[in-house]
């Protein structure tokens, strides 16, 4: 067996492994009755997606996916689930009764059909002005300067420096606000 062939075999195996696990976990995520179990399945989906990103040579996005989604956001989800102490799962179902399920099925099928139609036609491409599309294609084809994170880091700290810094002020204001609202009043009357 040629090394190249072996390589592509491993690649294919990894793709199906992560892809199928992601789909299976996503199905488990929406069907579990217990919110905590559902959240844990979602963590699994995120991990599998991170694996797929690595295979697409997007290591930075994969790292961010694990750090931000799996690490931060899902932990907060779990905190909220535990703090709110949600009631019996069947009371929380979004779709209730026969008509609820029929509507959900209908909307789901409509969305699926939309994805398939848009995938086949070039409806979305036609919305984008042609010169912009050409520019984007040229940028995608150009070799990456500064490795994988260069194209993320350079604009972040040059072009969008102000936006980056403003985001930190925004987060600071949000933290101060949360503390003000959440703090226990010591000398409340």
């Amino acid at each position, binding site marked *: 067996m040629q090394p190249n062939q072996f390589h592509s075999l491993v690649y294919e195996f990894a793709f199906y492994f992560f892809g199928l696990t992601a789909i299976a976990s996503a199905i488990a995520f929406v069907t579990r009755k217990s919110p905590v179990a559902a959240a844990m399945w979602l963590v699994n989906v995120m991990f599998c997606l991170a694996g797929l990103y690595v295979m697409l040579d997007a290591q930075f996005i994969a790292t961010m996916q694990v750090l931000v989604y799996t690490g931060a956001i899902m932990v907060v989800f779990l905190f909220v689930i535990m703090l709110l102490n949600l009631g019996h799962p069947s009371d929380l179902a979004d779709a209730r009764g026969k008509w609820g399920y029929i509507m959900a099925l209908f909307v789901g099928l409509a969305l699926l059909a939309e994805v398939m139609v848009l995938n086949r036609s070039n409806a979305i491409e036609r*919305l*984008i*002005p042609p010169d*912009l599309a050409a*520019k*984007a294609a040229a940028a995608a084809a150009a070799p990456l300067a500064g490795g994988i994170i260069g194209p993320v880091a350079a604009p972040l700290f040059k072009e*969008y*420096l*102000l*936006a980056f810094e*403003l*985001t930190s*002020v*925004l987060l*600071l*204001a*949000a933290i*101060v*606000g*949360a*503390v*003000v*609202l959440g*703090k226990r*009043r*010591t*000398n*409340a*009357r």
Partner: protein
Amino acid sequence: MIFDLAHPSQLMQAFGPDLLLMAGAMVLMLWAAWRPESNEHQRAVGMASLVLIAATMALCFWYSMRGLSSTQGIIAVDNFRWAVDIICLLGAAGAIALGMEYNAREHILPAESHVLVLFATSGMMVLAAARDLMIVFLGIELMSVAIYVLAGLNRRSAKSAEGSLKYFLLGAFATGFLLYGIALVYGATGSTSLVEISRRTAGQALLLNPMMLVGTGLLVIGFGFKIAAAPFHMWAPDVYEGAPTPITAFMATAVKAAAFATFLRVWVEAMPGMGAAWLGPIWWLAVAAMFIGNVVALSQRNLKRLLAYSSIAHSGYLLVAVAEGTTRGATAFLFYLVAYTLASFGAFAVVIMVGREGDANNDLVDYEGLWHVRPALALAMGVFMLSLMGFPVFGGVGFFGKWYLLTAAINAPRPLIVLAVVLVMTSVVSAGYYLNVIRLMFMKARPDGAPVPERAGGLTRSVVFIAAAAVLILGIVPGRLINWSRDSVPRTQQMEAAAANAVH
């Protein structure tokens, strides 16, 4: 001096007043958290915040007098920015001054409340400066996040919590619209920069592009929510009623001014080529806001709710100026904004003075016969009501504000005659509730057993006095304010090019 925004150091200088306010707010935040909650500490932090605002305002004046400009970049350095900054800083100073005494009365002790006002104000200053949809978004969020918290500051009041939660949920929803709109505009033009968007939409190039049309529509919805224009006004009465009154005043004036300013800048600077697409929606928004605000206000029994509907109506009037999309419209817009801010702030300050602990006594009944017990207060309230109505002479600057809006609407290149007619007709309707307040105060006897409003603290009284004096004085000599407004309008690409040609 021309700032080259590509250089970080010059960008920092161009962002000077905003940075001063943000840095100061952070220092005050630490100081606020340093000591245990007490009324004295809250007052001290409030005083320091007022000093910081005064310093920032002085810096804004200094910047505006130096005749600065910048290369085209993510922020604007123009007089429009300084004008909006000064209006917002005035609103913040008023809110903190009122808040120091109101918070003591209502036992709202966290000193951070003033710091949050400062953060909200820095968000407004970012909005006033933004020349990039990304900065617009960050500014709106910085402003809104602080205001969500401020609206729920009074934890003893269920109404305050209700208002805060409503505002937060609906605000987050509206933010989604705004962000989606920005994303679609980016998809259609390949840029978030207002300059670049105006270049790509010039000459109606993208007028029929579905992505651009949907994006523009979503932007209108997002901004419409922030300025509380009907039919996106549903949150406003509940939030205005529930929020602590100084914060209500802040929301009705500074928040609205900042959101309107960025709305105007985005339309005038980025989308003149899309005018045919957004004029229609804004026309209808203006009509709906004027109509719904004024008619529903007629049936209100609570003065805070009444002023909330009145502020919705005023959003409609201001939208008339936005719909013009001309320099003249922008001049009228700034002039009106000043007039509205002064009168509205004064009216809310009177509401605080008539009100009692627990945010009580805010109903119209409590104003009956006010003239017989607190004549000066009744007179001031009369001036504010007449000014909001746009009554000549006694309404001071409010009359000129409406007058300029009307003349600008009629003299626009595409005259907005119907809008002008609706503006006049709904203003007549508004007399029904503004004059009703005056009738109750002056022509009714004080009911037996009705408590005499307590003597408010010096800061609240001076806010009322300064607002009333400014309304009347600017009503007699509006010339300087008009010139200031005319010099402070945002400029489009074409206008800047024309100005440059005129110089050479």
